[in-house]
């Protein structure tokens, strides 16, 4: 079993620096440009799609934050919902009690994510692999129960802090010193797009910095990094806290847009769905998980009308994991590098599958 977990996250994949190549930069600019055009078009034609686009951006950011710890540091967090929800609740409370100024609330939501992640991380990094995952899950579920049962209100003797199982509803939208009014949804969309793009750029830089290299080193061989003199635990906690900050930011973006902070944000199924987005997209590439988040949200929204949408959604996960283990990113890269053999590769994958089902090696 030890070897199994030693393989955690190890693979031949490059360090997500596809984005740092010239082609990658062009692709990034093109996609952001396309999204900048898509928003206004959606707002005019079908406002529902603007709503979906914001949701995609939020979850892309969340998946990105998870990929930073999981894809790079090899820490499988099964509790990212805690930071997401904490950021969201912080935003809801701040907007209602202090100010709806985005420049005040969003950094504080981010900070909340950092603090929560630092606490969870500090306790959890001593365990490895699946045990780390289970610890983060336990802590995240504790946050869920705390929000659901409104423990802060019990402790403080207040009437309501988290709103219990109803959550905090009617959260107002952001503003910016009276200059920009984000209650116009298209402005909110542009803010989300800008923040997600900035986050992506920041995390790509960070992942390729000496700090990011050290995290990758820890993923590949923790003992060796410790022998060389790195304070492995501290690197892991700091990496986890940074990731938590971006998850908190995602929560801060999500809650006012939904005008609802609900305990469901903290539920373990959110963390589970996030891991699914990551694996579906292709972890360790930073852009892959964002693609995965987009695919999952689009599938959920488009299939919601179809009676059997859960069957299709689950089926897609199953097919991807069996036939495309490196996720959508793997499919994209293989199509780009080797477009001619696409059919043959698909056939090979199918034959391998049949062989393995029959029990041959």
């Amino acid at each position, binding site marked *: *079993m030890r070897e*199994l977990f030693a393989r955690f996250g190890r693979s031949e994949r490059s360090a997500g620096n596809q984005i740092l190549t010239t082609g990658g930069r062009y692709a990034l600019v093109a996609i952001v440009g396309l999204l900048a055009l898509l928003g206004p078009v959606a707002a005019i034609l079908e406002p529902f799609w603007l709503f979906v686009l914001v949701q995609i951006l939020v979850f892309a950011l969340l998946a990105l934050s998870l990929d930073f710890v999981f894809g790079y540091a090899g820490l499988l967090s099964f509790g990212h919902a805690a930071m997401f929800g904490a950021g969201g609740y912080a935003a809801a409370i701040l907007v209602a009690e202090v100010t709806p100024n985005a420049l005040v609330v969003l950094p504080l939501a981010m900070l909340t994510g950092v603090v929560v992640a630092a606490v969870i991380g500090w306790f959890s990094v001593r*365990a490895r692999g699946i045990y780390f995952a289970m610890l983060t899950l336990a802590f995240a579920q504790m946050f869920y129960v705390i929000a659901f049962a409104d423990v802060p209100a019990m402790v403080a003797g207040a009437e309501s802090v988290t709103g219990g199982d109803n959550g905090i509803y009617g959260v107002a939208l952001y503003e910016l010193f009276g200059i920009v009014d984000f209650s116009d949804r298209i402005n909110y969309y542009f803010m989300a797009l800008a923040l997600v793009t900035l986050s992506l750029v920041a995390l790509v830089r960070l992942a390729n910095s000496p700090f990011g290299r050290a995290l990758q080193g820890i993923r590949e061989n923790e003992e060796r990094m410790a022998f060389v003199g790195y304070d492995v635990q501290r690197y892991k906690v700091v990496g986890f806290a940074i990731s938590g900050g971006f998850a908190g930011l995602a929560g801060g973006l999500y809650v006012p847009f939904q005008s609802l902070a609900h305990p469901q944000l903290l539920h373990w199924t959110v963390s589970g769905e996030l891991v699914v987005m990551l694996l579906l997209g292709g972890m360790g590439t930073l852009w892959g998980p964002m693609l995965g988040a987009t695919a999952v949200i689009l599938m959920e929204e488009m299939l919601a009308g179809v009676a059997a949408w*859960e069957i299709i959604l689950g089926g897609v996960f*199953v097919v991807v994991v069996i036939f495309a283990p490196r996720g959508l990113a793997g499919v994209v890269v293989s199509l780009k590098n080797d477009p001619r053999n696409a059919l043959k590769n698909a056939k090979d994958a199918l034959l391998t599958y049949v062989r393995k*089902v029959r*029990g041959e090696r």
Partner: protein
Amino acid sequence: MVDVTTVLRATLLGLQLGMTLALVAAGLTLIFGMLDVINFAHGALYMLGAYFGVVVVSELGSFWAALVIAPLLVAAVGAAIEILSLRPLYGRNPLYHILLTFGLAIMIEGIVVEVWGGQSYRIPAPDALSGTLSLGSLSYPVYWMFVLAVSTALIGAIWLVISQSDVGILIRASAHDTEMVDALGVDVSKVFTGVVVFGAALAGVAGVLLGASRSVNPGMGFGVIIQAFVIVVIGGLGSFKGAVYGALLIGLMTAYGALIAPSLTDLFIFALMAVVLIVKPSGLFGATEAA
């Protein structure tokens, strides 16, 4: 406020809940111990057991038939899952099994909603087991006593098989060192299929048993899986003994928690899990060291 009768009743309830959860957790832990697969679909199998139970009772009119047939049907589903989806993935990063079984769980839930709708059902308990038992001031439903007895007997039997029989030796050996068992000439892939089928059947039994005392609904799979995880983690991943003790612990904590602070029970349970993991990462009875 809390008198002896209430505590006694909570203890019985806790034991009953614990033993039925042990049926689910035992399968989960055996599958993990041998295949290194964290089976997210295990809760869905438990749910299928309950739904199959509903169907069999309405078709054949017999609870006893349901208690036998439904777990067999679930076992067949387990076999299909193992052969068609788990088997091609052995040897890969265990994470893929999480994604795979997560997908399977969502699929099964979707199928259940598609076939039976979103409403909840109930398996009618057999007439022979209706009524309540009275012991002094304590009155307790006969059916719940029956559930406690059946699940305890099953768990005891499995314990005996695992610790005493040849099959048990094979199971423990495969869990300990799969490659060595393979090298000794045992067809490990059959053992793997067998374990998944057996685990699925146990989950199916638990589904039928609890389907007659709780409601049968599409959310029950995801509800039970997280409890089973907590149990397995506290007891030690891969340890059967750990799963049983863990299940009893969680069952009693839930029952007593309902008396003291119902809304905070889960908080205590997850806090306990966190403490166990921090102090002894491999769980109370786990054999493998985590770090």
